[in-house]
């Protein structure tokens, strides 16, 4: 019990502490690829600290939904993060929810963020909310199917069980094609859900293109800090999911100081590598038009479905 509590607290701290770094790292990679020096990788920490200290300005047209949303978003995203194995394969909160719970916890945050976008009454907020609604609608089926394709191999929809079994190489089929297809699908989903290029551009405030940024346009001060931190956490959740479900190597399969240390280090290395990859992708592709996004997400859905078909075909 005590050990479990400590593990949960450590996982919370790791997620909270590392997520701004990942955001900073992606920005740095993009800057370097654009031949800029860019801000330091620790700049997001300074941004958050500054935002927390600033006086928030709240729109006088808003209701309590607007000020409650950052807390709900922060809590639901962090709760989702606690369901994913981070550096130890058997998370103590395994019993609290499986992959469906994770998807719907993230959806809870999205729901309130859409409401908050509408609350201030400005056109930007509404526009962002409307676009977020369609992107979320299209990602979720692909996400559920791709996760199911992976779940079949491990015989479980519990993330911990999937990761633990994969890490111990239990029940892994010799042919990895279903896994690879599901990986591709989940990667596209991750990009869409976390609002990265080519679906959304986190670095722009242009009304033609913004989705996530438009929804949170009215936020300032501590509320903005929480929303930004939650966005970083969401990115972490997806990167962790991809890293640990598809490449759980190095993750601690038992609770011993040495393995935990190795688990933590390899985890940081894996998510940093994925952050590098995202930075490169963001630099290589242009943002898609909103109605082109559907094609991309359609591809993700078909890939996930193919993964499922392949699984059954290969297994006979």
């Amino acid at each position, binding site marked *: 019990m005590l050990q479990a509590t400590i593990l949960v607290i450590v996982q919370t701290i790791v997620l909270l502490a590392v997520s701004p770094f990942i955001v900073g790292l992606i920005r740095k990679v993009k800057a370097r690829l654009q031949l800029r020096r860019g801000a330091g990788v620790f700049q997001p920490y300074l941004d958050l600290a500054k935002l927390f200290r600033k006086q928030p300005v709240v729109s006088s*047209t808003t209701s309590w939904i607007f000020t409650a949303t950052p807390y709900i978003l922060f809590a639901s995203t962090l709760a989702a993060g606690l369901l994913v194995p981070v550096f130890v394969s058997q998370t103590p909160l395994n019993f609290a929810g*499986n992959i469906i719970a994770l998807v719907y916890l993230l959806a809870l945050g999205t729901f309130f963020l859409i409401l908050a976008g509408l609350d201030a009454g400005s056109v930007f907020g509404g526009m962002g*909310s409307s676009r977020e*609604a369609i992107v979320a609608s299209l990602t979720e089926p692909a996400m559920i199917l791709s996760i199911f394709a992976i779940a079949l191999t491990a015989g479980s*929809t519990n993330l911990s069980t999937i990761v633990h079994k994969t890490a111990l190489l239990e029940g892994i089929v010799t042919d990895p094609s279903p896994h690879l297809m599901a990986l591709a699908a989940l990667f596209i989903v991750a990009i869409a859900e976390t609002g990265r290029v080519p679906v959304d551009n986190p670095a722009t405030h242009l009304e033609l293109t913004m989705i996530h940024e438009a929804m949170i346009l009215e936020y300032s001060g501590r509320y903005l800090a929480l929303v930004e931190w939650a966005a970083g956490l969401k990115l972490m959740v997806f990167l962790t999911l991809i890293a640990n479900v598809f490449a759980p190597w190095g993750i601690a399969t038992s609770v011993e100081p040495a393995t935990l240390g190795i688990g933590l280090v390899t985890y940081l290395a894996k998510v940093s590598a994925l952050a590098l990859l995202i930075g490169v992708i963001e630099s290589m592709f242009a943002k898609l038009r909103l109605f082109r996004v559907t094609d991309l997400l359609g591809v993700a859905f078909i890939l996930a479905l193919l993964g499922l078909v392949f699984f059954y075909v290969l297994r006979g």
Partner: protein
Amino acid sequence: MMSVLLAALLTCYAVGVVLPACLPRRPKLQNFVAHGLACAAGLFGAALGMVGLVASEPLTASISSSIPYLSFAVRLDPLAAFFILTISVVGFAASMYAVGYVTEFYRRAPIGLIGSLFNGFLLSMTLVVIADNGFFFLIVWELMSLLSYFLVVTEHEKADVRYAGLFYLIMTHVGTAFIILTFLIFFQEGGSFSFETFRHPEQPLPEGMRTLVFLMALIGFGTKAGIVPLHVWLPYAHPAAPSHISALMSGVMIKTAIYALVRVYFDFLGGQFPWWWGFVVLVVGAISALLGVMYALMEHDLKSLLAYHSVENIGIILLGLGAGMIFLTYGIKEFAALGLLAGLYHTINHAIFKALLFLGAGSLLYATHTRNMEEYGGLLRRMPWTGVCFLIGAVSIAALPPTNGFVSEWLVFQSLFLSFHIPSIFLKLMLPLAAAMLALTGVLALACFAKAFGISFLALPRSSHARRAGEVPVPMRVGMALLAVVCIVLGLAPMAVVPLLDRVVSPFAGVSIEDKVLALDGWALAPVNVEFSSLSPPFLALLLVVLSMVGFGLVMAFGGLVKKRYHKTWGCGINLTPRMEYTATGFVQPIKRVFSTIYQPTVKLETEFLEESRYFAKRRRFEFHIEPVFQKYLYDPMVVFFTAMAERLRVVQAGNLHLYLAYIFITLIVLLLIAV
């Protein structure tokens, strides 16, 4: 105990039918008497439902009649008790709400009559689920349809209400015709209308007849439930009724059809199905769920939007039932029980949150006198109670944790995912695909309720109606708050709900799965196997609360106490007006465009330019419609066909009395000839 409660329940409703109509025409008195009695009956019903669910033996009672084959037999088994409980809880809240809501009708409609019909409607629904005789069932079923029709046309002075009522009346009778056929097949084989002979006929029904029963029941009860493509009446009739009636119709009346389907398939037919029965139910469920939510998204009349969501949720319930039927075919009893349990869990959840949402919509109607969402706005500040209750309902129907809608949808997901145990590879692929459709449905429902809540309750009021709106009377708030609390309880306490549902399900599936679904002393749900999946709604709720506090702690630690500053929203240099806000139509525009193959939208934009210059528009007219596919391609041709037939048949109706006498004479002779 049970018989006393049942007698009290029926007496309260019966007195509630008779007394308000007999009272002097004093609306306030009639209101209190009618809805007070309905409240009392609701309490008795809830108690009866709980007792019936845990009772070891079903309660049976019967009064024979002089009409052949008819006996007023009732039987209260756990399935019936579960539906009594659902009807009573919703009935109680709706009656409470009605005390405040019908004040709106004091000058416009006879309150005593509405109260009588209301009690009669509840009574007939109660009798439908406990009837144990086919003939008796049909009588109360018809009574339920007719009474609800009368209630739908309460505001019969409006033409669209009359149209909605007529549409409903026709469709419900088409459905009833199929139900009569279903029962006649049983009657023909067993020689009695008693449900006991339906259940245990002397010789089992031949295969062809069983298939016929399956299809007839699906069409007949499906019409009432509102499955696609038989749903067309629902978005007309449910919104046309007064809101507390809409809550009953959408919340519980359509559930009686689910009751009847479970009764016929799992009880009468004994759960022996070929695999394609379950598959058909699954497909119907998936299509209903997806199309229901898609049409709901395009609807800006709040009550019609909710009505379409009933189609969606009936689809989700059928996904659970269908999965259960498929598993039963392959003899995987535990998963069959799980599917059925998930479907029934969603049945009560939908009853509660849909009733809550309809009551919320009624409150908005009461406060603003309009159902058009585009005229709402900013109501959360003006109607804080209604707003919070509606939000709880919206979060529940969007299946977000930790509410009840999430728990039951999660169970449906699990039963679909367990499909890899089925030997057929076709079904192995189809069930996850249904899960993907369910995921799409879920997230579209999220978008739809973000729209419904966001446009109605947030930002600036969009009309003078909304600006002048105020909070509704206390009884209405109590009715809504009660259902909101039930929503949360059903979500947080599945350990209390699952054992009760297991008592309903286990006789049909032949296996009890209570200890397999519940893990960790009931604190987590782990369908069939902890290794496969688990969910702990109470813990998730706790986690959310704790982590919000962590967020608050971080804010305090890094920022300390700072006073917020309020300022108007930046409107690019000009003052923000409601006309600049995003509208509901605008909000769903991307969705409409992405799914244009389904919607087939027609957009018309007419611009009238100034005479001086074509750069300035004088007036713009924008219109958009989505194609009512089912009405246009399925119902309209049928209507045309039947009208043409009627035209032809008019020849025999010459209006001459002698001719009619001749008809009677000829009929008599023909009958005599046949008899001889």
